């Protein structure tokens, strides 16, 4: 669209050209305004109503929130999210970094190995969950196999243990996404200036120091991107829990996402479900907003 505007006619075409970028952005803005923020507002409103099976608009004040905090499973869910979220993000980052560093050593068949690390992302947990469930089941999975090899005292029954089951969720979740994180770090490593590395090596820096002082600090943007992706996945983890433990044993692996779904849809307590969603969103905001703030300011 070559500009036809001239100095004498700063008319419609000119203004259109100036407005064009914003015009292009406007559908997105409209969509986000309605389908994200509008819906958040709607949920906020629902959380103060007596909605059960469908949205209804009888005002009940804080009652849903009061009930929410009387429900044990909610406490469990929140605690689990903290344990799960922290472990998941930390382990994924650590493992992803380790694998990226290992893969960055001019490995033969790198592409092949990379694909193996990456493929779990492609699978839906509806059924992968079943495979994991079996694998972790002491009666038929890993424990049984290792015992079959003659190590009779080997035990691995975490998935059946209320205190440990949440860690099996971490194992499976890490399996699914650490490859993706690996790819992000690998990309970060490939982007590092090799001259700097060489110079440091000539100065006699040990490999450990090399990575700690020069490489890892340069991976900061990769860490940041990984954090956004992982945090978003941790919060939305739903399929995983349903497929692996169904929230059990008891309510030991309930997460806010499963709690919210169950109250909104299974238990016909839409008001309480909405209240839990609001709390969840506020928590997310408390973590994400400062991060976004610092990131976006810096980039200017």
């Amino acid at each position: 669209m070559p500009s036809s505007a001239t100095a004498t006619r700063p008319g419609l075409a000119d203004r259109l050209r100036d407005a064009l970028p914003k015009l292009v952005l406007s559908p997105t803005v409209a969509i986000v305004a309605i389908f994200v923020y509008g819906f958040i507002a709607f949920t906020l409103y629902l959380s103060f109503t007596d909605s059960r099976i469908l949205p209804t608009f009888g005002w009940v004040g804080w009652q849903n929130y009061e009930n929410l905090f009387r429900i044990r499973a909610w406490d469990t869910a929140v605690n689990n999210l903290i344990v799960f979220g922290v472990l998941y993000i930390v382990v994924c980052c650590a493992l992803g970094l380790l694998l990226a560093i290992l893969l960055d050593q001019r490995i033969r068949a790198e592409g092949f190995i990379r694909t193996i690390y990456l493929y779990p992302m492609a699978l839906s947990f509806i059924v992968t969950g079943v495979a994991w469930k079996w694998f972790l089941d002491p009666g038929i999975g890993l424990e049984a196999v290792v015992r079959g090899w003659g190590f009779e005292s080997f035990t691995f029954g975490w998935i059946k243990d209320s205190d440990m089951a949440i860690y099996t969720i971490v194992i499976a979740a890490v399996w699914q996404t650490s490859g993706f994180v690996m790819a992000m770090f690998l990309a970060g490593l490939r982007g590092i200036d090799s001259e700097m590395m060489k110079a440091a090596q000539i100065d006699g820096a040990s490999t450990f120091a090399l990575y700690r002082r020069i490489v890892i600090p340069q991976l900061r943007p990769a860490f940041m991107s990984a954090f956004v992706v992982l945090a978003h996945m941790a919060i939305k983890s739903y399929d995983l829990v349903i497929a692996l433990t169904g929230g059990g044993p008891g309510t030991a692996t309930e997460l806010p996402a499963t709690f919210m779904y169950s109250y909104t849809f299974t238990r016909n307590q839409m008001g309480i479900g909405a209240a839990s969603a609001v709390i969840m969103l506020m928590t997310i905001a408390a973590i994400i907003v400062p991060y976004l703030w610092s990131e976006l300011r810096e980039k200017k």
Partner: protein
Amino acid sequence: MRKLATSMTALATLFIATQAQAEDVEVLHWWTSGGEAAALNVLKGDLESQGIGWQDMPVAGGGGTQAMTVLRARVTAGNPPTAVQMLGFDILDWAKEGALADLNILAGMEGWDAVVPEALQQFAKHDGKWVSAPVNVHSTNWVWANKAVLDELGIAVPTTWDEFVAALEAVKASGKTAIAHGGQAWQDATVFDAVVMSTGGLDFYKSAFIDLDEDALGSDTMKEAFDRMGVIRSYVDDNFSGRDWNLATAMVINGDAAFQMMGDWAKGEFLNAGKVPDQDFLCFRFPGTQEQVTFNADQFAMFAQGPEVGKEQAALATAILSPSFQSAFNVVKGSVPARTDVSNEAFDACGKKGMADLKAAAASGNLVGSMAHGHANPASVKNAIYDVVTAHFNGEYDSAAAVDELVTAVQINK
């Protein structure tokens, strides 16, 4: 039978003469396994012979909860399916919203009131109007047993709690697993249903689960029921948590375990493994509940499209209630017909027993809705009870605490 059904349909269509041409039916359901779908095909064929197409909308998962979520999205969008498979309180909830079509004319004409048990009608009628067509009655207080294991250990079919515990002890002593159980909330609750019925009797069950009477919920009898759950827990193997019910059934089939408490759908697993009722496996009521039948029933509710029920909806409802379909479907599903006047010819030993039990229980007032399967109280209360039962079964707290929790949970969610 088939002839009768078709002639009745013809009659029905005469009476419910809507101007509109018969349209296709879109059916939302969660029956996707081979046998269930084969049975639904009977319905589909019946409708197609009347020129009504079947648009299939299966959404499985969570014993229908997934389908209910989808239903809510569809209704909210203003695009409800014509007919929807539903359970218990869901039907009543939707009827309260005024979303369901009135089937009274049809029901009156075909005499549903006379053939469908009273206890079941409570979930098929709202404000005196029929709003759904019941397909079957599942009963949930069955115990399934491996006959070879019982014979080998000289165990007779237990009829009281004490005999049952003695039998469990004998199995445990032999080194086998006494009870095959899957540790999922609904399975724990299925057992709890039977245990409460056996411990407190019919009236106690009703006042606790149906009337939600706080005295009953907080009573010593309830504590005793939790104690018995603890006893059962001690006869379950260590790997029970999260196990699918059918894998638990497989343990009984393979002779690794002696008993499983499960609804009548477990029979399909036995039959599929080539086992014969009364020869290879036994089915009997949970000890102490021989008189009672706790049930859940699948029904099809019709979503209102206008002031009158649609012609195709009426045809579907008629087909569902036809004795031929009731028999054909329930033979494969493992459940028993929702109408009590269907011939038991095609059913196996367990099916015949189930039909006889249902008829007797319906006549004597011993037919009650199953709490675990959403036929005693609304979904919110049911799930709150699940939480407590499961937490107790997994050892999170003792029986006294469980009773307190139960009362609180019901209070919050009532």
